[in-house]
């Protein structure tokens, strides 16, 4: 079980959260201005990294905050996404 550091609630068990996958680039302001290929790339293509992975978590069974984590997809070791070492590793 992972311990996830919520900015509001502190360290909470993983089962209170939902992981919604990798952090995507900002949603394009005007999709109609993009080519189809760029839009498809944004919608379906994923980096799916083996190693350090920036991802979104949602504290759905807690305070409802959204947060970003940097987690190693091989070891499940967690670092905060701001690049600091954090206290959670």
């Amino acid at each position, binding site marked *: *079980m992972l311990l996830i550091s919520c900015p509001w609630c502190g360290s909470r068990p*993983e*089962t209170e959260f*939902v*992981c919604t*996958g*990798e952090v995507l680039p900002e949603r394009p302001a005007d999709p109609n201005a993009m080519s*189809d*290929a760029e839009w*498809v*790339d944004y*919608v*379906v*293509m*994923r*980096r*799916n*990294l*083996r190693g350090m*992975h920036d*991802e979104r978590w949602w504290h759905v069974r807690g305070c409802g905050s959204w947060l970003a984590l940097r*987690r190693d*997809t*091989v*070891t*499940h070791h967690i670092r905060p996404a701001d690049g600091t070492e954090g206290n959670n590793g």
Partner: protein
Amino acid sequence: MQRYSFLTLARNALSYHEGWQRVWRSPPLKPAYDIVIVGAGGHGLSTAYHLAKEHAVTNVAVIEKGWLGGGNTARNTHTIRANYLRDVSIRFHDASLRLYENMTRELNYNILFSQRSMVDLVQSSSKLRDLRRRSMAMALHGPTYNIVDVDEVRRLIPAMGDLEDVRLPPLAGVVHPEAAMARHDAVAWSYARAADSRGIEIHQQTEVTGFLRGPDGRVAGVNTTRGAIRANKVALATAGNTSHVAALAGLKLPLVTRNLQAFVSEPIKPVIDVIANFPDVGLYVMQSDKGELVIGGGTDPIPSYRQGCHFQTFEDTVASLLELFPRFKSLKMLRQWGGAVEFAYDASPIISPTPIGGLYVSTGWYGGFKAIPVGGLTYAHLLATGAPHPLAEAFLLDRFAGLKFLLEAGTVAQR
């Protein structure tokens, strides 16, 4: 190739079993091949076999970073079934089942194929509607998927406990009589032996570290831990690591890799002779020929290459097992493991050329064991002829370009 039969067994027994041939060779690595297949698992080896058998393409190397059949081919729960929803998926997996039925004879290797049927217990009305729809879709194509009542499920799975007290009351069952299990290692070994005997080379301990590119940007081979190998075509069959390997060529794919766990109990006397599946609670259980209960659940809910135990999923699966089979509460578990499976954005496989010339992918296999024969057949067709096999025309990568998703949620333990 030395044929296996009662006579060869008897003859070799007389000479103290010292006369057996090696099952496949370990030839020296050549600098160039027509086709390099990356990944010597079920799909890679089946592709190699079908390249040689149907298309007489034998200047092929199958390269593997670890040992043959040591990835997801060794980590699955050896279930073969065709209960899917979409027309193309049903036809594709039904064809695979038919190839499995004949594989022991065709490859002269006993894969311990055991067609013992799968029984689903349905515990929610939404799942019942979903499976009834699937049953009707399958009736159009051949494989059987029959709705039965709960009493029939009780009769087919007598090891189940009293269903009075389960949290989700059972509503009905569905029976898929063609479903089977087979010895997973033997599937890899039999294809390796058959491909090798037709001249295809298998190179283990050869990991891809990069791609050779031609002046026009085409992939012209691979760099490996044992040096460069030139090839006209490079075909990825790398199970959970396809995103990682494709990224070495600068290619991004619509995939997410997750951990799928299974575990096995100590061997006990026969108690379950079907594949028992409980889609509403995320559990399936069957008994291997050795007597071990093979137990699995849903995939872990986070992206992962860990191939290990994610405790909450493990605990959920065990809780479901003990609710439905209270008598297993004193059973000891012998082994637990995980495999890295990749999900395409629409949960259907991808067997396709890529935007990079000379590079092909076969990916998106979660539950790819059941598709090994037909995956190899269709991938080999694509590699040899350049055109997709009629069974796999829907599985091209360019379906995503038009956002034409082939939505399929045919997983065993989809919640």
